[in-house]
């Protein structure tokens, strides 16, 4: 066998020939048993190569889906129109007796035969069940009927008026049946497409939902970023050296107009006195009261505070020792902590 033929056999098996080339090759193959054997050998090699792809297991649910699809198709098949013609649409004189009176030689014969050798794979895949081969009835000379114009016939003009409505009815029925089967076929084609569209819709919904979540997250982060701009963290320390280890931190949320104050290593206030937190804002001539607080046994304090007056821009935090219950304005007799 020459190289060119072997090349064509390889291209044929790998499915890369054009339809015309494929057809020509199949004709050649039908005449050459050696070529058939070569193609069979190449097919085995191709299948082995395909069998060596990395294995991927289909999900178990897929089998259920495919089996269910068979059920749906079987159910549809059962619903199809019965082959018998309803009496309403029966042709005049078409009784069972009339049907049985049709001579057997007028009926086409069918015989079962395997696929022809030269049938291409692609053709075969799209090939409808071909178990029946049409064998036409033997031709017989028609009986000689003398020509006569329609108007001169014995049935005359009544012939058309009688047959025409039946012919139209039959055409409509045939058309309707064709439409019905076309619709069923379309349903079969549409079924997987619909499933795919549904999945894509589902995916789109999931993506849409995720997008919304992300948008919310971004909005939240933007909000937080804005909030961070409004947050002020101020470290407070003792103004003198009499209590070097005392330390305070104030976290102020200007937008919420609230804050948290933490302090450590405070010295217990004298009897009848209390710590008081102040905030300084250029809007006001005197410090704004942010509340009194106490320390625990370890000298620590942790308070949430809210000033008496709205703060535009805090410039300093001050902690002073004031008479129990607090003062309207700081006495500055004992300045404990200061931060800006």
């Amino acid at each position, binding site marked *: 066998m020459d190289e060119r033929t072997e090349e064509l056999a390889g291209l044929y098996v*790998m499915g890369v020939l054009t339809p015309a080339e494929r057809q020509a090759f199949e004709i050649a193959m039908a005449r050459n048993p050696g070529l058939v054997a070569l193609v*069979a050998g*190449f097919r085995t*090699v191709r299948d082995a190569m*395909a069998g*060596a792809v990395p294995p991927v297991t289909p999900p178990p649910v*897929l*089998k259920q889906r495919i089996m269910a699809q*068979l059920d749906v198709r079987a159910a549809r098949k059962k619903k199809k129109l019965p082959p018998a013609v309803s009496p309403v649409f029966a042709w005049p004189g078409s009784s069972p007796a009339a049907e049985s009176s049709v001579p057997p030689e007028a009926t086409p014969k069918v015989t079962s035969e395997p696929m022809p050798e030269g049938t291409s794979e692609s053709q075969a895949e799209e090939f409808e069940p071909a178990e029946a081969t049409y064998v036409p009835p033997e031709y017989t000379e028609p009986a000689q009927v003398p020509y006569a114009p329609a108007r001169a016939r014995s049935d005359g003009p009544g012939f058309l008026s009688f047959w025409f409505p039946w012919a139209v009815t039959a055409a409509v029925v045939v058309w309707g049946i064709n439409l019905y089967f076309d619709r069923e076929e379309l349903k079969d084609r549409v079924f997987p497409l619909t499933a795919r569209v549904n999945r894509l819709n589902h995916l789109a919904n999931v993506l849409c939902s995720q997008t919304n979540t992300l948008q919310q997250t971004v909005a939240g982060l933007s909000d937080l970023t804005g909030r961070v701009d409004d947050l002020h963290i101020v470290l407070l320390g003792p103004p003198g050296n009499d209590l070097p280890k005392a330390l305070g931190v104030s976290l102020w949320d200007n937008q919420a107009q609230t804050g948290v104050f933490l302090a450590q290593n405070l010295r217990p206030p004298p009897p009848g006195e209390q710590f008081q937190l102040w905030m300084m804002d250029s809007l006001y001539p005197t410090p704004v009261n942010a509340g009194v607080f106490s320390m625990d046994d370890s000298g620590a304090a942790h308070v949430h505070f809210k000033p008496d007056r709205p703060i535009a821009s805090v410039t300093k935090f001050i902690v002073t020792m004031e008479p129990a219950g607090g003062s309207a304005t700081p006495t500055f007799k004992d300045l404990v902590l200061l931060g800006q």
Partner: protein
Amino acid sequence: MNQPAMYNDVDLLRRIGEGDRQAFSRFYDQYAGLLFSVAFRIINEQQEAEDVLQEVFGQIWHQARTYHPRRGRPSGWALTLTRNKATDYLRAYQQGAKLQEQASAEMVVRSAAAPTANALVRSRSSTELIAAAVAELPQDQRKAMELAFFTGLTLHEISAVLHEPVGAVSARIRGGLLKLRTRLEGVA
């Protein structure tokens, strides 16, 4: 594959053609792994490979009665259906040459050590032998064969992708098939 197994598969297809659901189920169990692997290899998308497999088994159910042993083994027939359906999918849904070229660029020779378990290849050792034989092919031959079978490109498109004349591509495919046939004698 040995002869009795082939006859069993043929018998399965005959029964499927007669509407035997049990035979269909058995055929599915036997070949779904292989066919799905091939579809996935071609499309590289799980969901779409599932769709292709579903359509292929629909075709098998409807066309089993048209199968004739002259057209090769049942597994080969089913493989051809799968390959054609998957490549049709590629053409239709992956926007033509650009993605195909991308897919071909991503062609990777699979490791010879990668184990496969499918009905076509009956034992692990034969699978490994086949994979090894494929991996040992010269790269130009292997690539031409893989492009031909797994991408659905035409001969001229393969020639364009490989920047080689059509004649050279044909010769490589032929050479690869002949080499594999020699190496796989008694294995596949």
